């Protein structure tokens, strides 16, 4: 068993590219922006953390599913605030997927001495841009 432990398994990694954001912080744009904001930031951050492609696809898929749920809510719920709330809830759910897939990779990156990048500006852009996009799509498609 020790022979296996004492055999080389490490390959030099590409020098770190862009610094990752804290996955925990994505909760803010997810809350204000909705599922697209959470998934966009999640996928971008996943690339920064060099996650395997299936995990990136899972995050993107969660975002699409979250928006689908919002569309359904938009079609059947009368009140506007209900539709807004559905954005918050589905955004948080997408963020949970992001957190589940990225927490470990983020902490390993911290072990490597990587400093997290600030999410304030990209977070604001994502929340506002994706929030408006979702609103327009819902208005155009089902309301």
């Amino acid at each position, binding site marked *: 068993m020790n022979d296996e*432990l004492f055999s080389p398994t490490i*390959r030099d990694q590409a020098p770190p590219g862009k610094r990752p954001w804290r996955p925990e912080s994505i*909760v803010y744009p997810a809350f204000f922006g909705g599922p697209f904001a959470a998934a966009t930031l999640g996928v971008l951050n996943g690339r920064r953390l060099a996650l395997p492609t299936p995990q990136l696809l899972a995050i993107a898929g969660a975002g699409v599913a979250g928006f689908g749920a919002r569309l359904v809510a938009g079609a059947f719920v009368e009140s506007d*605030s209900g539709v807004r709330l559905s954005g918050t809830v589905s955004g948080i759910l997408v963020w949970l997927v992001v957190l589940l897939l990225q927490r*470990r*990779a983020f*902490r*390993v990156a911290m072990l490597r001495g990587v400093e997290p990048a600030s999410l304030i500006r990209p977070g604001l852009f994502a929340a506002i841009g994706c929030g408006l996009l979702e609103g327009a799509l819902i208005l155009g498609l089902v309301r």
Partner: protein
Amino acid sequence: MTSPSPVLHRAQALLATGRAEQALTELSTLPANEVTGSYAIQLRCAALSQLDRWADVGEAARAGLAANGPEPDLLLWLGRSEHEAGRDENAERALLDGLALAPNDVDLLCAYADLCAANGQLDKAGKLVDLAAARAPHAPVVYATRIQIAHARGDDREAQRISREFVGVHPENPVAHALLGGTSAARGHIDTAYEGFRQAAAARPTEQVFAESALELRVARHPLMLPLRPVLRFGALKTWLVAVGCILLLRAVGLPVLAGLLGFAWLAFCIYSWVVPPLVRRWVRRGWS
């Protein structure tokens, strides 16, 4: 090896109290034929590493290996410095060469575990540190490595548990207190965390990291940060779920006004939690330095 010279003794004592610069000065008084001795090189490497001069650590370790032939302790320093330089393949080679000579060396096992963890190989890292723990369950390096791996796994509870054990066994060790501080902060136990870093900084005032962390915790204990305690204590996840759950519940039972008020309060809280911490950090820092 003959018994270490008084110079080496003094250098070692200086290192143990974190005075790396003075240790290096002491080592520079060694006669030329003793400078490349294995133990002198190891002390030099330890001093340089405390000063974060990792490129020099690598150079010193290579010089030592050239003079003394392959030795586990020098290979350990070479491995650490290569890891710091981001050349992990070389680091692994050096550590495995060392382990081939000394398969039970606790420091080598832990350094290799660290390297594997930093490359995301947490299972292998766990097995390596288990081997080290079987040899020396109470060695500080074993505790520290176990804590790092638990943290990387995302198991904050376990990381804090091991830190408590570490402090219990080595109450005089500043690293133990700092790790208890770090793992407590991760779980939102702000007061325990502050206490840990304060003790670490008091025991080793030259260590910048400890002072920085104590400062960061002073920020977290500021009165303006009190409203954020629930988020720190229970984690962002649980607090947010509870808040969203309450808003939904109020709507469901037919109290949309209350739900709206709570939603608005929550919005204000979010903005507060975004804006206030950097401001408090600035104020505290100004008063500190």
